[in-house]
């Protein structure tokens, strides 16, 4: 393992829930992450902001092991999960991800979307899984949609189901990958409300987002990504209120207009 320079002086790596150490990831000649380091402590909510192509999504996909990193290390509770040849499935049970395009299974009912991994991965009985699904659907106001198919739902409802599907596994870490980018503006609120409700429940969240107001409101820390590294990181009030890095200032000027 090659530990890169730790350019984010935040909670000590040992106590970190999720830790990226000098992670490099390239797709062909396109280097998406360069020597990327970040520590996130348990229960912390960290937002990743930055232009398209700055590497936000790739950071999340590397933590969930959907991408194999080229160099560096990804740690979960101090345990190196990115080693080559390691079974990714136990890690994925502990780290949930919600995608920009929902990615619900279109041939399954809402309830089955939620219970599939519960029965097949966690080995729960159909009844137990179904109870868990109903409980979560009720909590997020989707009870009457249990037996409906995804394409009969609005985008906002689909994304809420996708969040529930990830939550049903009781993950320790939840990765949210631009979860409102594919939604009509009037549907964004209902999805963000779900995330607001999750904050403080002890779950660790990494959020890649273009919703600056939301990032400011919900995050403990905000990272501004540029060219595959963290250009600036800090509390939302600092980063949005008094950005130090020139690139951050430029970016914020552009998105605020």
């Amino acid at each position, binding site marked *: 393992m090659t530990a890169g320079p730790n350019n984010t002086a935040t909670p000590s790596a040992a106590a970190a829930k999720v830790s990226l150490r000098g992670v490099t990831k390239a797709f062909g000649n396109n280097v998406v992450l360069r020597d990327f380091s970040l520590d996130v402590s348990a229960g912390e909510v960290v937002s990743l902001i930055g232009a398209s192509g700055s590497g936000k999504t790739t950071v999340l996909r590397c933590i*969930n092991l*959907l991408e194999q990193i080229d160099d560096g290390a990804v740690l979960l509770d101090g345990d190196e999960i990115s080693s080559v040849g390691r079974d*990714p*499935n*136990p890690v*994925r*049970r502990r780290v*949930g*991800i919600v*995608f920009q*395009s929902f*990615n*619900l*299974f*279109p*041939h399954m009912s809402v309830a089955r979307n939620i219970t*599939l*991994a519960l029965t*097949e*991965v*966690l080995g729960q009985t159909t009844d137990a899984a179904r109870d868990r699904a109903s409980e979560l659907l009720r909590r997020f106001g989707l009870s009457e949609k249990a037996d409906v198919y995804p394409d009969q739902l609005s985008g906002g409802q689909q994304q809420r189901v996708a969040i529930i*599907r*990830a939550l049903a*596994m009781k993950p320790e870490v939840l990765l949210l990958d631009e979860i409102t980018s594919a939604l009509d503006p009037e549907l964004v609120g209902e999805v963000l409300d779900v995330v607001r409700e999750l904050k403080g429940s002890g779950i660790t969240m990494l959020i890649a987002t273009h919703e600056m107001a939301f990032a400011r409101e919900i995050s403990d820390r905000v990272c501004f990504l540029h060219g595959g590294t963290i250009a600036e990181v800090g509390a939302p009030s600092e980063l949005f209120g008094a950005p130090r890095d020139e690139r951050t200032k430029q970016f914020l000027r552009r998105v605020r207009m």
Partner: protein
Amino acid sequence: MVLAAVIVLVPRMPRWDRVKKSFFDVEQMRDSLPRLIDAFWLDVKIFAWTTPAIFVLALLIALARNSRSPALFPVRAFAAVYTDVMRGVPVILWIYLVGFGVPGLGLERPYNSPLLWGSVALAMTYSGYVAEVFRAGIASVHESQRAAARSLGLSSWQTMRFVVLPQAVRRVVPPLLNDLVSLQKDVALVSLIGPIEILRQANIDKAKFANFTPFIVAALIFLAVTIPLTRLTDYLWHRQQRRTTGTRVAA
């Protein structure tokens, strides 16, 4: 218009009476029909037992070709060669080779039946085609579906079984039915190595009565089965188009 012209004009052609006698002899039709229907029953049976074999084989080949693990390279290579060879050689050649060749090895009854090995040859060739249909279906399921399934902790096999395959198979129902229509006709090729199915029976009748009407009757029997199957394929295809493409552009 064209049809009317044919109906009106053709019987006025010179020597129409000869044509009529040779191809459309009503007496001959009456005589041959029961025998041909009996013989067609064998075609139906061959069709019925090769179809499941084809689907199972084709699915295995398609899964082998879609495997991703580097260690499974030999499996992928075998599957690729299999589809190439099965599709690259004429069906009739496989039927001769396997249907005549294998019983010729001196196997015991009932394992030396040309009927059995002719059916095996059909299953082999058709599984090559159907495997490609399945493969296209599997490839058409978006990568993000796999990502979602894997991110929940499902193994690659569970992802295939619960998420990818059910969507893939639904999408390829129309092309699969198309292959079945084609198989339904190619079953007649087995007649070339001996079994008396409808085409062979028609040939026997033709030779006996020096009349081509039995072939016409056989053709009509085939059409009676393939046309409804084709219409069903069209219907399913249109239904799928409606479901997946949403709004249609006005003509």
